[in-house]
């Protein structure tokens, strides 16, 4: 336990001038702003955003659908030749409600669903939902 002391009393006006000067001297420092589209920050490896789906690995176990806290994942029927996926169901993701909590990535038994660095998902309101095929494509190939 320590008792915090009140700061030393400054001479009236002089203290204020000191405080003003301490703010004013920041003009000589470099700005910290990143000019986003031109400059890009370094994203750490674990940075997570867009969900990708590997259609060949997905076994249609519906665990991701169950664990999704926001019910953003629903299973869709896709006619695709995948011997491991007997029921032919694959997840689709609604990015309008996805909170990027990566629970689906953690629980996926075959690592078919995973989160990537891609984060620039500008979409109109009605096209947030990605079908399983779209989830397997890189972002610039998804046509919306």
């Amino acid at each position, binding site marked *: 336990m320590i008792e915090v002391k009140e*700061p030393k009393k400054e001479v009236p006006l002089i203290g204020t001038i000191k405080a003003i000067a301490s703010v004013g001297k920041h003009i000589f420092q470099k700005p910290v702003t990143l000019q986003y589209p031109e400059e890009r920050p370094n994203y*750490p490896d674990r940075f997570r955003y867009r969900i990708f789906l590997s259609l060949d690995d997905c076994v249609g176990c519906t665990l991701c659908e169950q*664990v999704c806290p926001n019910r953003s994942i629903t299973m869709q029927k896709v006619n695709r030749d995948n011997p491991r996926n007997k029921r032919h169901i694959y997840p689709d993701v609604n990015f309008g409600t996805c909170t990027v909590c990566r629970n689906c990535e953690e629980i996926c038994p075959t690592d078919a669903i995973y989160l990537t660095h891609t984060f620039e998902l500008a979409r109109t309101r009605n096209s947030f939902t990605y079908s399983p095929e779209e989830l397997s494509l890189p972002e610039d190939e998804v046509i919306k």
Partner: protein
Amino acid sequence: MVVPDTAQDTSKDWVELNIGPQHPSTHGVLRLKVKLDGEIVKDVEPIIGYLHRNAEKLCEMDYYCDALVYFDRMDYVGAMNMELGYLEAAEKLLGIPPPERAQWIRVVMAELSRIASHLVWAGAFGLDLGMLTPFFYCFIEREKVLRIFTAVSGSRQQTNYMSIGGVYQDIDDQIIYDIEQFTEEFPKKLEEIFNTFVKNDIFISRNKGIGILEPEVAIQYGVTGPMLRASGIEYDVRKAEPYLVYDKINFDIPVSYKKDNLARFLVRFEEMRQSVKIIKQAIKKIPDGPYFNPKAKKSLMIRLRGEGEVYARTESSKGEFGVYLVGDGGVKPYRVHVRSPALKNLSVLPVLAKDVMIADLFAISGTIDLVFGEVDR
């Protein structure tokens, strides 16, 4: 000339002013019905609920592991502390204690989160008083914490980093180096920010002796955290009922007996210094070993079952954050109830803001450190 509404009703000698829910200094969606006599505030009635999402119901509807997502969104400026509060309860209920390494990592993250939360508060408090610039200095420092969070968990604010039985991902040498770097640089910057506030006579005169909260009143109203400690009661859950490994760490609880706004300001800044001290110790002591309990394997996440009742409390940046968890043996919690410290601290505002000026009302509501994700849940 049209006489404004304020003067029409001469039978009452006060003006009813409606502040919020959208107002620059209500920190989100607080609404205050204020009765004014000139500049003097006669009565304040806080009206809350504008950010109410009923997280408790949402938690009941989901698996134990999913509730973390909602807890992240309670105190969104210090999300790690919220996760910790929930996990303290959930792990006791499910009987899955986290391994040693995870506990130390959690301490580091919780304290970083406390720093992030207090920095937001300091900046916003400056704005409440009309200081435009310290806000940015605080946020620049906070951004460094959030970069560490991104490197650790992959997300800035809603980290969802701690999981039942440990943490989602281990921390590596690069992250430890980043955190050490931060703890080296941060105290200097903190003093710089501190000086831009306290050197100012006007800042001192706006805060000293304003918003006196007597310790008895504070306890009666359930006020905890920095507000209680600024009223002179040395009570901190980290010391009173140590969770994680806080009993193995050497740190002090800042206390002030001045009971006013300035005391709350100073206590919070001292807490940030103590947090740096805790991080410095904890980062050196992180032992090797597993970072999650194998009983809570990731593929078993939705099969965890718990029965009984647990009330666990942690010291979040706002105060005592308690989670009351009832399980009925199923995979979903039966009842989740959150003791939200900011809600309790807000309930004392009508007492604090009696017969003060309007300007002081905002200074006082600024020192309460309201985050509406947590108040309304």
